[in-house]
């Protein structure tokens, strides 16, 4: 049996709030295979985003181990983690988080500025990423000149510009209408299938979760359910997603 792409062991994350200690994740164990499309669901405060941040190396665990792509990231220093993120992780946010003063091209180029690639190679990479998301014709547009769906597609292009193996998405459809949300989900599926990206997606939306291969349901910092697609299907399906989301109120 091959080594999982993401391996999490006894993960604990606690925050100190004045005199109180708030434990968000308590001894979590999780393994995600390479090429898997995983949806993280759970009520607000269940620890989904915290887990995502820990997997992506933008937060540090209180204890426990996190291995991503064969690299133990829990013990890495600040600079090492930054370098690791720039090469291995693509981020997709609910509110796109594009830099408003940069064009679509320049936004996608941002992570490439941290590489040693010369200008011509960077340009090629950006054009490739924008062509994958179908926005080559909008590369000179500023975020304010794009629709929400287009902004999110630019954000996805930025996430894949350095060709990372892992994509983490925090509510990628949370701020989109149904049509744009569907386009983003199709795009994520394509990145997973055609480009073998491992995707970890936090979502409240059963429609989005239903497209994942696997659905992990967190509650109060512990893994409550771990549902995988069955019967030869790729996706966990709407029924499982709705069942997983039952019992918690989605964020507005």
């Amino acid at each position, binding site marked *: 049996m091959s080594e999982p792409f993401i391996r999490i062991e006894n993960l604990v994350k606690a925050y100190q709030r004045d005199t109180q200690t708030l434990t968000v994740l308590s001894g979590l164990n999780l393994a995600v295979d390479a090429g898997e499309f995983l949806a993280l669901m759970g009520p607000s405060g269940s620890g989904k985003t*915290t887990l995502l*941040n820990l997997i*992506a190396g*933008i*937060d540090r665990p209180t204890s426990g181990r996190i291995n991503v792509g064969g690299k133990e990231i829990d013990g890495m220093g*600040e*600079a090492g983690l*930054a*370098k690791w*993120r*720039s*090469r291995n992780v693509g*981020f997709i*946010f*609910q*509110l796109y*988080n594009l*830099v*408003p*003063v*940069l064009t679509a091209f*320049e936004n996608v180029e*941002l*992570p490439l*500025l*941290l590489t040693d690639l010369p200008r011509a190679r960077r340009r090629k990479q950006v054009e490739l990423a924008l062509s994958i998301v179908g926005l080559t014709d909008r590369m000179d547009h500023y975020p304010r000149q794009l629709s929400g769906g287009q902004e999110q597609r630019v954000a996805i292009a*930025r996430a894949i510009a350095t060709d990372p193996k892992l994509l983490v998405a925090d509510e990628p459809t949370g701020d989109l209408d149904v049509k744009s949300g569907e386009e983003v989900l199709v795009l994520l599926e394509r990145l997973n299938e055609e480009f073998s990206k491992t995707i970890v997606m936090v979502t409240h939306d059963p429609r989005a979760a239903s497209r994942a291969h696997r659905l992990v349901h967190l509650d109060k910092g512990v893994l409550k359910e771990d549902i995988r697609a069955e019967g030869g299907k790729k996706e966990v399906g709407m029924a499982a997603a709705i069942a997983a989301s039952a019992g918690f109120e989605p964020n507005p």
Partner: protein
Amino acid sequence: MRFFPLIFKNILRKRTRTALTIASIVLPLLVICLMGTFLKALDSPGSGATRGMFRLVVRHKVSLTNTLPKAYEEKIRQLPGVLAATNFNWFGGKYIDASARNIFIRFSVEPESFLQVFDDAEIVAGSVKDWLSDRTGALVGTNLAAKYGWKVGDRVVLQGDIFPINLELTIRALYTLPTGSSATLFFDRKYIDEAFPSFKGQVFTVWIKAKDAAAAERLPKQIDAMFENSPYPTKTETEKEFQNGFVSMLGNVKLLITSIGAIIVFVILLIAANTMSMAARERVTEIAVLRTLGFTRPKILGLILGESFVIALFGGLLGVLLFVAAEPSLKRQLMLTPMSSLVASMHVYPAILAFAFAVAAGVGLVAGIVPAVRSSTRSIADGLRQVA
């Protein structure tokens, strides 16, 4: 280098604010350049000394308003190392009215000896002969003539106050000095002596042309020692020291100007720091996203400091260039005032420009440090959380 476009785009994000911040640096920097240049001009050696003029001024030790016996002038003239001596006598009075705009320096002198001490004065219109032959004639500096549009042959009426007499003078010649300080009106003291016989035998100041630098250094002590125990003790100083004495009448001007300069620097530092803090606060999430993408703390620090530095440098450059452009016309205006002798040696000093530019650069760095450190050390998760 590859991050420069990002820095510039961030600077242009709020154009009005950036423009106002730059303006808040430009204007104080102009003042710093002006004050620094003025201080430097005060400190620079008299241009006469550098050209071998070595002029000294003897006055009453107590005050400029106390007179000296005219006999002192003759005694001084006999001293070794004195090439020539003359006397200057303040007339005061008013021209047109008593407003500050119409105040200029008016001295009664003895024309022959005056021209010996000021043999560097160039007559550019009229003639010395005409001035010497007309008891009511006046020798006027070109700057002063230009201010009032006077020309040779024009009549100038001065209403007296210390000497209650209305002088009716005719301009007989225009002079200019190599220093450019040419904003004084000189007329023959015989005019005063005839109207006020009691003033005969008195002088306000004695001006000396020393033979050389050694004489110029020796003579002040020698002259002051000579009259130390007389009823009219003297104070002898170089022409430059004498002129700077007028500035010191206002108090410790150098300390005052330096203090004002320091306050100005501190104020622009606060303004720039506030602007940079606002700019960084508005972009907490954006900075967190950049760090998520792999921008390290030093890179974020560099980006924020870079913005602050570029804004300050641009403001500094603009301030310095504006001063360089404005200095000649500013000097022209000052040369028309009684301050002309003080500002005559004023010019654009590269050291002052460099200092002003360094102040701007320093302000840029210091103003950016706090927001830059805060932005780069804030937890990414906290920064991202501000989205929701």
